[in-house]
């Protein structure tokens, strides 16, 4: 967590979209920005890119206020996927409260997915985060393309890990909100344990997710 000040009633949460180069991390954020109502979120900030490839990161902030008056700001980041930007990935990954791993469904990207996931494991360990406890969601993106890994194969591979796996076509806007929501559910549980969101702040899991995705909830 970036910040938690009980007296100031302020909490800043960090979520990170991780994954191999050009798997659609920024597209996920663009779609969230486009599809979620303006209320409850800020503008998408895209830092300098080269040839449409993220070299720093993107940021999309979300806000909610708990019944207790606790102001929660959720900052959603993407990391640069290219191998050479590993140092930036580490800096972005620092103190993350949840991670979406965006994998590229195309068969030829299998090796890159694996390398990037191993890199995630490595960097999580480096920045002192426990991959077994950190809220983590895997999104298999680009389901609209040809020559992709079969869903069955994905389920078979990831079934044993108990990491939630979602399918998406980010460019078409499919599966993007679902992925975000799925992560928020896990993040709420994790935050609830640490900061008693429900008990001390009257913030339920449903309200948390609904407010951040600006759906009718409370």
């Amino acid at each position, binding site marked *: 967590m970036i910040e938690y000040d009980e007296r100031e009633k302020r909490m800043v949460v960090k979520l990170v979209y991780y994954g191999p180069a050009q798997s659609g991390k920024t597209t996920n954020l663009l779609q969230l920005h486009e599809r979620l109502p303006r209320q409850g979120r800020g503008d998408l900030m895209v*830092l300098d890119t080269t040839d449409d490839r993220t070299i720093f*990161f993107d940021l999309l902030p979300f806000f909610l206020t708990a019944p207790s008056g606790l102001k929660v700001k959720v900052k959603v980041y993407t990391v640069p996927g290219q191998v050479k930007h590993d140092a930036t990935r580490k800096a972005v990954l620092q103190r993350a409260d949840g991670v979406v791993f965006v994998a590229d469904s195309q068969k030829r990207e299998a090796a890159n997915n694996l390398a990037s996931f191993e890199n995630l494991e490595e960097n999580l360990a480096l920045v002192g985060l426990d991959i077994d406890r950190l809220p983590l969601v895997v999104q298999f993106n680009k389901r609209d393309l040809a020559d992709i890994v079969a869903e069955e194969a994905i389920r078979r591979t990831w079934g044993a890990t108990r990491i939630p796996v979602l399918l998406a076509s980010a460019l078409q806007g499919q599966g993007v909100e679902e992925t975000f929501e799925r992560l928020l559910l896990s993040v709420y549980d994790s935050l609830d344990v640490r900061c008693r969101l429900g008990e001390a702040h009257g913030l339920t899991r449903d309200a948390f997710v609904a407010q951040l995705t600006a759906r009718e909830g409370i």
Partner: protein
Amino acid sequence: MNDGSLNYIVGEERRLADLLGEKEMRPLLQGAVAAGAARAALLDDAGEVLWAEGAGGGCTAAMPLCLEGEPVGTLQVAGEEAARDRLAGTVRFLHAAVSALVTANLKRMLTVETHTSVVNLTYDELLETNRRLAASEREYRELAEQLELRVAERTEELRRAHARLLQQEKMASVGQLAAGIAHEVNNPLGFITSNLTTLGRYVSRLMEMLDWHGAAIAADPELSARAAVRGRELKLDLIRGDMGELLSQSLAGAERVKKIVADLRGFSHIDDPVEGLVELNGELERTLEVMARQIPPGTEVRRRFGTIPLVRGNAALLCQLFAGIVQNAIQARAEGLVLEIRTEETDGRVRVAIGDNGPGIPPDLRSRVFDPFFTTRSVGDGTGMGLTVAYDIVTAMGGAIEAGEAAGGGALITVALPPAE
């Protein structure tokens, strides 16, 4: 991984004052005043004035300023009531400008900070990588150096072992030869000596009989005269005089052959146990005797034998050792050789020093003379084994051997051995 290099965290919250500066804000607020506002100001989220230009104004137009979607301050433009519409337009214009400035500055700040942290982190990692590489290079270099050293050591050992083996084989064949010769020579020598002695006895009897015959025919002068003539023809007087000497010389020769064989046997120590108590003075004497015919005539051998304790070791090898050193001395100088052999006990060591008056060993070669196959002689003259074998024999006995300079500038080889307990 250095923890310090990861202390930059993307996502830390910014305040408005961090993102805007006097130099940027002042002209914008002045612009608003120039556009007709009486006063233009930027307030932070607590309502405190951060920057303000101008004064007065009864009517106020304001717009909230957002950072990452959150309101972090307020832009206020005040003026006359009549200019309300213009004030609203001015504040919207000012808001657009400041918002763009805030966003641009935030991006620039994030970019610069990330870039700096990445550069630092990368640099730290490079330093660490460099350190590890240097360390591993050092390890490999040490390993390589040690390897060379080990190879050199092993090669040296092998050369020595090879030299020792050659010498032992040589010694074994010398010993076997000596034993064979002793056996073959001693038998005929036995009956030669015995027969010569018997022959001497027979000859004296014959002489006695000759004398008797001479006395018996003395009564007959004619016969006597004829016998005397015959005797002169046969040179009997000469024979009688020579006979004894002939026999005693032959016997002496046979005795000498017997002694040589015995010395050879002793020198090779074919009959001795491999290791035992050795009296060095005796072995030196024995060595000199065996080498007597190799030592050139006119050589002066100075024996400076002291009273020394016994040493424990292989007598045959020690004889071989001394013979090798003496051989070197003989080869160092053909005429007028002075060989000085000194034995003494000093500092709890039995020392044998063999010096000559040859050209000596140059100081830079003294450490190398014990190396296998090192020789100063032309190919074929020396094997380069003598001192190597000597070195091995002495070190195996727990002693030391060194090459130095004799009083007259010749070579001096000193062997120091521990006395037997």
